[in-house]
């Protein structure tokens, strides 16, 4: 099936393009919009954006693959990204990452087979004063910081909260 933006995304897309003197400049925000709508950035999605922005597909490919926030493979409904750079490492960043590994039964860099979770180790997220922390990106494209997670108790509260959101989130693998 050929891809197409929903009516709402179409309006956003046109507004994005109007912000810049040429269409290529709209590529970064357009990739986010496409990821929100189609779950992940497949070659098919890149080709669709190339067509919509009137760009050679190779330009979309080089940009989409240069930046880490565009998922070239589907990730879980909840993408947990734990910071382990210095300031976080000093306050328990690795401990937090290991708590997630134990709780989810996967290693960093992996996804659970049910498509619910992906766990990634990331670099400094400009939240060093509230370490340890992680960023959540859900399959609707919402991002949220969870900070100061320095105890088992706070960790459990956050995980329970995220678990309760899972039923309302689409599985990125099914989004296009």
């Amino acid at each position, binding site marked *: 099936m050929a891809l197409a933006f929903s009516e709402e995304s179409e309006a956003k897309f046109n507004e994005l393009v109007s*912000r810049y*003197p*040429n269409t*290529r*400049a*709209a*590529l*970064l*925000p357009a*990739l*986010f919009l496409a990821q929100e709508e189609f779950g992940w950035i497949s070659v098919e999605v890149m080709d669709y954006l190339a067509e919509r922005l009137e760009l050679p597909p190779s*330009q979309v490919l*080089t*940009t989409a693959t*240069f*930046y*880490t*926030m*565009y998922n070239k493979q589907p990730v879980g409904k909840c993408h947990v990204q734990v910071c382990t*750079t*210095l*300031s976080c*490492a*000093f*306050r*328990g*960043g*690795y*401990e*937090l990452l*290991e708590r997630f590994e134990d709780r989810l039964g996967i290693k960093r860099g992996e996804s659970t087979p049910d498509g619910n979770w992906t766990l990634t180790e990331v*670099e*400094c*997220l*400009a*939240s*060093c*004063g*509230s*370490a*340890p922390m992680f*960023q959540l990106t859900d399959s609707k494209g*919402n*991002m*949220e*910081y969870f900070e100061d997670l*320095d*105890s088992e108790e706070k960790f459990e509260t956050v995980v329970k909260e995220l678990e309760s959101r899972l039923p309302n989130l689409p599985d990125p693998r099914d989004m296009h």
Partner: protein
Amino acid sequence: MEELFLSRNFKIENGHTLPVYESGGGYQRLKKALNMDSATIIDEVKKSNLRGRGGAGFPTGVKWGFMPKESELPKYLTVNADEGEPGTFKDRYIMELDPHLLIEGCIITAWTLGLRYGYIYVRGELQFAIRRLEAAIKEAYAKGYLGQKIQGKDFDFDLYVHPSGGAYICGEETGMIEGLEGKPGQPRMKPPFPAVVGAFNAPTLVNNVETIAAIPWIIERGGEWWASMGIEKNGGPKLYGLSGHIKKPGVYEAPSGVSVRELLEDYGGGMLDGSDLKGYIPGGSSCRVMLPDTLDALMGFESMREAGSSLGTGCITFMDHTTCMVRIAGRLAHFYHHESCGQCTPCREGSGWATKVLDQIENGNGRMEDLDLLLDICDNIEGNTICALGDSISIPVRSYVELFTQEFEDHIRRKGCPFPAWSLRSSASTRAEAVAGAE
């Protein structure tokens, strides 16, 4: 500090909204600036001794003076909100808690330099900041502070938020411009500088968020007043992000030229109980590490250089006696290796090589000659790359090797790390037990 400027609205309820911002005098500074001419404003900014807050400390008024007056193409403002330098977390607070301060600064800057379009280039992870900024921009348009014929003047300016896609290198100003243009963030050769050929081939001003946020205050109270809250050549209050092994990590506003000791003790609450200061990084992880005997150094660009490092972003990471400096150097080299854009061989290959050598020493497989090898790798990166990311690897790595040589040699002799495994992984609660157990 008694009166706050950059963080004034941080603790005020709904401080991010237009009505609250205006009730505190917001947008009056724009109205004042619209009745001042360009040369007068640039002069005030020069007098203020405001230095770029993105890390390099270039005098803002001088940079503004480089912008060409005439241009066939529309001129651009790009605000650097990529905030990715490890240990740095200050711009995010301005965008989230006082977005109008930044927006008012953008409009005054555009008026002063005749800039037609502005983009705030925000790292994509900061979605909350992006949403706050977009909502605030909408409010500003509705009030006629943005758009066409602003406040009845012959002055058009449009301002947008541009989300980055996740790449540290886009904090480098020409990498940022590439990202704005939808390309991979691979920095450009300079010259030409962005003031001459920047975004979309047009003259472009690049300033950091905190730099632009200072402008409304300089307009309100004058350049000399701003300069008075500082030391020679370094004017005005600034935001200091304090993190690491301290009691009260967070963002604090204090004058330029405050000492590291004051920041640590009076603002940061001192080191954690049972922690002795072993070293600190004064302004983001690309600075040279410093020893505790420099605590009285003042937070200014020249004073920090004299003390042996650099001011950088002014966000300090404090490290205690349980910290393994070999592991730190390896962790940082890993970061810069991961973030190297890959264009220049010395940076791309040198960062990976340094990471491997450091990991080898940490894991007990180091050789004495590795220390010279590390310094040699640094020599070969430094100054040999298009942008300063290369130096961001060599400068810190060299400093750990030079200042903690003994510790590196210990690793090599003992064939392993003498520090406990928990030292770079435990949270405040679990480490208290670990520290006690170790004693």
